[in-house]
């Protein structure tokens, strides 16, 4: 967790990048999430830890599961949660991000959960306000809570990720999930291979500064047999202006988790798991059979989302301010 001096002169804990978290901090967040998940089964789904605190979800980009899981997480911790979306707020009337953020912060909020289409937006917001800032996805940069919940879901099924082989497949150029997952998985000691067609693999990827010790491949069939976990990334049509691959069919043949690949994966390692951050394009990057297979963690990932975000809010907000 990065601790940054804010506009108010105080230091605040933020979660802006997966690289902010060392191994002990990731461990603490995942372990706390395990305890938080217990309350999902309870009759009274409420813990008093953030009573009287206000968390604002500031979402300038469409999101269903991230926003609603942050909202539920905040409410179950007894915080007051306010949702502000880009459409319908003053930004659609031409207000700048800075003015919107300062207006919201002036109301006396304790934490801002920020999603924005610009890479670096959450970091920028953390410079402006005297509140805790959580990056809920900034452009094509990072999505640290998604990486935490993916690691949490995988650990639940696989046990420790130390030395385990995780294959991340798909649109690396536009995926904030891939970058955050790579960092968090390396922090936990997993072996990571990134697989993508050459057109969707950023040219400087081998020198991504915050991580090392990962492998690159253009051949999914070659790496699949050694995988303990396969993470299929969404083909993000909204960020693509075409030209990255000839046809959807060709992408599926080369890089989709098709039925034959599912067979190959399960034959090589019956305990392997399949992740997808959602929303899925069934039939494009993942076959329906794979999405619904016993190896699929897709629904586990959603239910883990609330517990992991409760844990993140708890670790950021509950303790004393330095």
């Amino acid at each position, binding site marked *: 967790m990065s601790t940054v001096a804010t506009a108010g002169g105080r230091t605040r804990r933020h979660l802006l990048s997966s690289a902010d978290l060392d191994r002990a901090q990731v461990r*603490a967040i995942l372990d*706390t999430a395990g305890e*938080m998940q*217990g309350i999902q089964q*309870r009759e009274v789904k*409420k813990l008093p830890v953030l009573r009287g605190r206000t968390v604002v979800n500031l979402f300038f980009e469409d999101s269903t599961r991230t926003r609603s899981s942050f909202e539920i997480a905040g409410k179950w911790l007894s915080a007051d949660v306010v949702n502000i979306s880009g459409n319908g707020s003053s930004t659609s009337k031409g207000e700048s991000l800075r003015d919107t953020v300062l207006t919201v912060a002036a109301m006396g909020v304790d934490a801002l959960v920020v999603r924005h289409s610009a890479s670096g937006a959450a970091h920028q917001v953390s410079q402006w306000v005297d509140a805790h800032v959580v990056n809920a996805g900034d452009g094509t940069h990072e999505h640290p809570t998604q990486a935490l919940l993916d690691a949490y879901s995988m650990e639940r099924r696989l046990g420790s990720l130390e030395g385990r082989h995780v294959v991340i497949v798909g649109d690396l150029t536009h995926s904030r999930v891939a970058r955050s997952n790579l960092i968090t998985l390396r922090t936990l000691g997993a072996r990571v291979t990134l697989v993508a067609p050459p057109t969707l693999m950023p040219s400087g990827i081998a020198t991504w500064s915050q991580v090392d010790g990962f492998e690159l491949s253009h051949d999914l069939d070659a790496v699949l047999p050694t995988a303990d976990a396969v993470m299929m990334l969404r083909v993000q049509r909204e960020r693509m202006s075409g030209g990255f691959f000839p046809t959807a069919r060709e992408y599926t043949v080369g890089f989709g988790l098709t039925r034959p690949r599912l067979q190959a994966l399960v034959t090589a390692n019956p305990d392997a798991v399949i992740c997808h951050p959602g929303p899925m394009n069934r039939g494009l990057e993942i076959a329906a059979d794979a999405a619904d297979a016993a190896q699929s963690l897709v629904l586990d990932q959603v239910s883990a989302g609330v517990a992991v975000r409760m844990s993140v809010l*708890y*670790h950021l907000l*509950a*303790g004393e301010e330095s």
Partner: protein
Amino acid sequence: MTRPDSAVPTVPEADVSSDPASGSDTRVVMSSGDISRALRRVAHEVLEHNKGAADLVVLGIPTRGVALARRLAGVMESVEGTAVPVGALDVTMHRDDLRRQPTRSPRHTEIPAVGIDDKVVVLVDDVLYSGRTVRAALDALSDLGRPRAVRLAVLVDRGHRELPIRADHVGKNLPTAGSERVSVRLSEHDGIDDQVTISGGQSR
């Protein structure tokens, strides 16, 4: 668990940092035998008051309360011949001092399968001091269900209550000064023989 001068228990990681036996002002107030005898008596008291082991659920407050709860349940089982459900109740999320402390990770809560509704819950902790931990435990319990009754058993009652809370069963009443530290060491957690020591403060 070490109870320092402040009104709150220290974080579990911190309380093994000093060896209580090494200081010259450290006195052993309960030996391993004393602790074992006190626990046997407390177990008998609980059973006597409850007229048997029916509906009892023993919940320890982490860290050392859990080990004490297991021992108490073990004694009760050997006396009554029936298993007594035992578990752990973490109170971290219900503390009133969360914002005064560095963030602490919650400990494991484990409620026996029989649940706590309409049961007689016996809360177990090592040292009763300010009463704030017990208050937090009562709040945590009310989120989990509605016991028929809640009773409190502690190994050491050192006084200095800040809330209207008292123990039903006490292993040893230990008059202390606020500046003194009471440390409970249990073989399960500390790898040394059980003992309760008192250190610091003026010699009395």
